[in-house]
């Protein structure tokens, strides 16, 4: 997060630094200037004083030491230093005539005396190397002549040797006078006057310091003051910006800030206005997007629910289809049985009676019957696999024996089209643990397929074992030299009811189911089937099975699907979390759950699916639970379905008075929910008695009932029916009316005469045309009458379920 005010501080600091810097620079320049001026000033003063003093000195010299003395060129002057007391040793080079007098005590004494007298430390030296001397003109232009010596106008100089000042520090300005021999231009030396200048220089420095020190507080004060003013100004300027910043930050954090209230007409005001507009636009956009998202989410949820529901419905429908196919297949077999059997008998008899011209036709009837039977068997197999009702019967058997068996069966078919069958299998191929019947059937399918599409060629059955994936596998490859298939044909190969194309079916016959079944069988046994084919060259189908087939554990999904058609539980609740909980709880028990997110949807699904149990919430938008309950109980098709209230509202009286079967309050006790649902689903079916003299009808009813997990007892007529009653009262009776010995009406009368007999629901299934009187009679005593010739097994099943699940099942 940005620290508010930090901009102001930064700006103030920067500005202060600039101001202070500028002031310091100005001060420094001022100092510099005044320093130079001061030096100049003081040099002037000093030179004036010196002029006077030197005048005195020269006079003294002339008066006291008359003679041929002259100040001559000297060795470099060594000063004692700034710290020496005034009047210290002056080293000078004096000449007497042309002869330099070095360290002449006389001269020294002279100079000491001169120094003392003038209060000046005087020395005589030589300054020839201009590089080492910083010169300053003093402004004094007086040239003085004293005998042989001429003093040039004084100059201030800072003396250096190799860049370092010779004496002291920076104050060691030396004022000197170049000394010329009178009447010549040659400088023969300099007259130094070091000492007096130190104070001058110091004074000058002190003065400049004074100026600087006097200025410094002012400078600081100004700097601080300006900084403060700047800071305040900046703060003031930044305050609206900070308000905008705060608003932007809150916006960034997902809050909706208040409108930034800045009414100034400057740039900040404009910025605030723009921000306010932007925030408002953004808010509007976000609200719109949120609305859209909510709408889309709801649509998605709805379509998900619809999809789930569609899937459940499809599953149920698929189950029903498979069951129907299984039943139909069975129904079809019975008359086929007769057709095949009697055509065989007739063929035998025709041969016996030498009616040989009839034999080919009888064989055609027989052959067609067999073909039809194969179709039906295939359909039955496939529907069983698809209904998840195909079980594996695993046993260990020698592969070799099984192969021989299949080969001897297929041999006639192979020979039909002049094909040769080659079996390529090691003698020590060993055994396999698998479903013998299904493996045999699979191999038979592949071999008969190969024979069918090959003429005057070779069909090879190659069997090998292989190790892969840590397991032993058996590979059974059936190769033919037949017509082969194009990639397009291959793609459709394992689809049920699809042969390579329609003309193939006409030419080669077959159900088109063989390969589909073979593939399903292979998968059921944990194996697979692959195919390679080249048109015109032949095909190779390879069946790969584990040497040790393991029965597939029934998956929970499978259990849920299996349970689907029998005991669906419809959950009507607007809370998806509730659906999730109920689904998890019940699916663990193998009970399929169908969700409905509203009362309307719930009613619709209840009508479509006729669930075994409905759970119902009360507080729902739209049609509430009470309304849904009333609607359910008002619909004769649905009134029998037990409704379990599952709600937070504790109003059992209301629930029970409207017809609820059970009342559970949220939070739901899962165990209790399972118990209640189980109780209403009547798991395991009941005992049913089928009384019918028609075997086909009995078979059909039995299949239907067993499909619904009923335990079935059969009776051929009323008498047998009564005998069955004597062994125990069933939960349901399916009754034919027209029967030998004792008909349905008589049976009904006898049933009702027995104890408990009136409570047993009776469903009449008859081909008999009922008179109005009979119909009226039955309407009192039986639950429902079905027309045998137009019997819709789905409707019958629904009725059976209703009877089983309905709490008022015994009423008629």
């Amino acid at each position, binding site marked *: 997060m940005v620290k508010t005010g930090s901009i102001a501080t930064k700006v103030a600091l920067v500005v202060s630094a600039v101001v202070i810097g500028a002031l310091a620079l100005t001060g420094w320049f001022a100092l510099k200037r005044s320093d130079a001026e001061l030096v100049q000033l003081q040099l002037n003063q000093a030179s004036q004083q010196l002029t006077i003093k030197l005048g005195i000195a020269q006079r003294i010299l002339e008066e006291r030491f008359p003679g041929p003395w002259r100040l001559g060129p000297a060795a470099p002057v060594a000063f004692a230093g700034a710290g020496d007391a005034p009047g210290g040793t002056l080293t000078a080079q004096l000449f007497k005539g042309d002869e330099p007098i070095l360290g002449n005590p006389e001269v020294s004494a002279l100079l000491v005396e001169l120094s003392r007298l003038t209060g000046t430390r005087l020395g005589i030296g030589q300054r020839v190397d201009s590089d080492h001397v910083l010169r300053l003109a003093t402004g004094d232009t007086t040239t003085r002549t004293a005998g042989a010596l001429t003093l040039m106008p004084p100059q201030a100089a800072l003396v250096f040797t190799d860049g370092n000042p010779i004496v002291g520090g920076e104050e060691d300005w030396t004022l000197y006078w170049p000394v010329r021999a009178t009447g010549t231009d040659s400088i023969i030396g300099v007259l130094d006057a070091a000492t007096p200048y130190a104070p001058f220089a110091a004074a000058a420095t002190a003065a400049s310091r004074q100026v600087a020190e006097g200025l410094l507080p002012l400078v600081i004060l100004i700097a601080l003051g300006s900084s403060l003013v700047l800071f305040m100004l900046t703060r003031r300027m930044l305050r609206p910006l900070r308000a905008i910043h705060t608003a932007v930050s809150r916006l960034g954090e997902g809050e909706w800030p208040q409108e930034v209230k800045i009414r100034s007409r400057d740039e900040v005001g404009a910025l605030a206005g723009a921000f306010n507009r932007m925030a408002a636009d953004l808010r509007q956009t976000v609200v719109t997007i949120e609305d859209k998202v909510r709408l889309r989410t709801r649509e998605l949820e709805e379509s998900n629910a619809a999809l789930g529901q569609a899937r459940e419905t499809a599953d149920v429908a698929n189950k029903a289809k498979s069951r129907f196919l299984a039943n139909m297949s*069975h129904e079809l*077999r*019975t008359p*086929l*049985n*007769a057709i*095949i*059997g*009697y055509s*065989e*008998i007739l063929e*035998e008899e025709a041969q016996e009676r030498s009616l040989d011209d009839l034999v080919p036709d009888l064989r055609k009837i027989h052959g067609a019957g067999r073909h039809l*039977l194969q179709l039906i*068997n295939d359909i*039955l197999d496939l529907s069983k696999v698809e209904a998840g009702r195909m*079980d594996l*019967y695993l046993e260990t058997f020698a592969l070799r024996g099984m192969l021989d068996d299949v080969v001897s069966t297929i041999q006639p078919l192979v020979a039909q089209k002049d094909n040769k069958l080659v079996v390529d299998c090691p003698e020590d191929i060993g055994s396999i643990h698998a*479903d*013998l*019947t*299904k493996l045999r059937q699979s191999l038979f399918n592949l071999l008969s397929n190969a024979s069918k599409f090959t003429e005057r060629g070779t069909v090879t059955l190659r069997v090998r074992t292989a190790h892969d994936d840590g397991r032993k596998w058996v590979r059974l490859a059936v190769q033919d030299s037949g017509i082969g298939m194009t990639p397009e044909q291959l793609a459709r190969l394992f689809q049920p009811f699809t042969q390579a194309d329609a003309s193939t079916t006409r030419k080669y016959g077959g159900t088109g189911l063989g390969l589909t079944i073979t593939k399903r069988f292979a998968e059921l046994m944990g194996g697979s089937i692959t195919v390679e084919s080249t048109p015109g060259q032949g095909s190779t189908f390879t069946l790969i099975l584990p040497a040790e087939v393991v029965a597939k554990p029934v998956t929970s999904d499978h259990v849920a699907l299996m349970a689907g058609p029998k005991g669906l539980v419809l959950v009507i609740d607007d809370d998806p979390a509730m659906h999730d909980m109920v689904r998890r709880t019940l699916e663990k028990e193998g009970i399929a759950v169908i969700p409905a997110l509203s009362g309307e949807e719930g009613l619709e699904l209840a009508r479509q699916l006729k669930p075994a149990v409905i759970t119902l919430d009360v507080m729902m938008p739209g049609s509430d639970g009470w309304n849904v309950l009333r609607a359910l109980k008002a619909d004769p098709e649905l009134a029998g379905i037990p409704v379990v209230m599952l709600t937070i509202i504790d109003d059992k009286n209301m629930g029970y008075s409207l017809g609820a079967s059970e009342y559970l309050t949220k939070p739901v006790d899962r165990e209790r929910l399972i118990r209640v649902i189980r109780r209403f689903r009547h798991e395991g079916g009941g005992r049913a008695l089928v009384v019918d003299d028609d*075997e086909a009808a*009995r*078979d059909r009813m*039995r299949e239907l009932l067993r499909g619904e997990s009923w335990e079935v007892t*059969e*009776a*051929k007529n009323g008498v*047998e029916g009564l*005998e*069955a009653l004597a062994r125990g009262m069933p939960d349901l009776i399916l009754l034919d009316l027209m029967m030998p010995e004792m008909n349905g009406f008589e049976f009904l009368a006898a049933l009702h005469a027995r104890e408990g007999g009136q409570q047993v629901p009776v469903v009449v299934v008859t081909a008999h045309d009922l008179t109005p009187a009979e119909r009226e009679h039955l309407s009192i005593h039986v639950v429902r009458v079905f027309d045998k010739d137009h019997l819709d097994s789905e409707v019958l099943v629904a009725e059976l379920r209703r009877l089983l699940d309905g709490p008022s099942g015994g009423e008629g």
Partner: protein
Amino acid sequence: MAKILLVEDNELNRDMLSRRLTRRGYTVVVAEDGEQALELARAERPELVLMDMSLPGIDGWEATRRLRADPDLAGVRVIALTAHAMSGDRERALEAGCDDYDTKPVEMERLLQKIVTQLGATR
């Protein structure tokens, strides 16, 4: 030739099978349900029973169990006939005490083969 008890509730099937077996030279006794089958088994003493498993009243499974429970009928061979070509039926039939198993509709040659085999095994 051997005596065969054919237990079959469907009239057409009963008729066909009995005629064809008779033509093959067997003596055929027919029963329409389980109870009748047990009665006739005791009365006629057949060497072999062709038992349809889905019968009204006492079904083929139960009839076979009862037949097996009767020490007097110990030597009789039983071939189960079921309408379902389901692999499980074979195991179920053998478990119930049948000696062999075949499916309906009957394939005559195959059934005859089984009959011969069973009769050959008769003590």
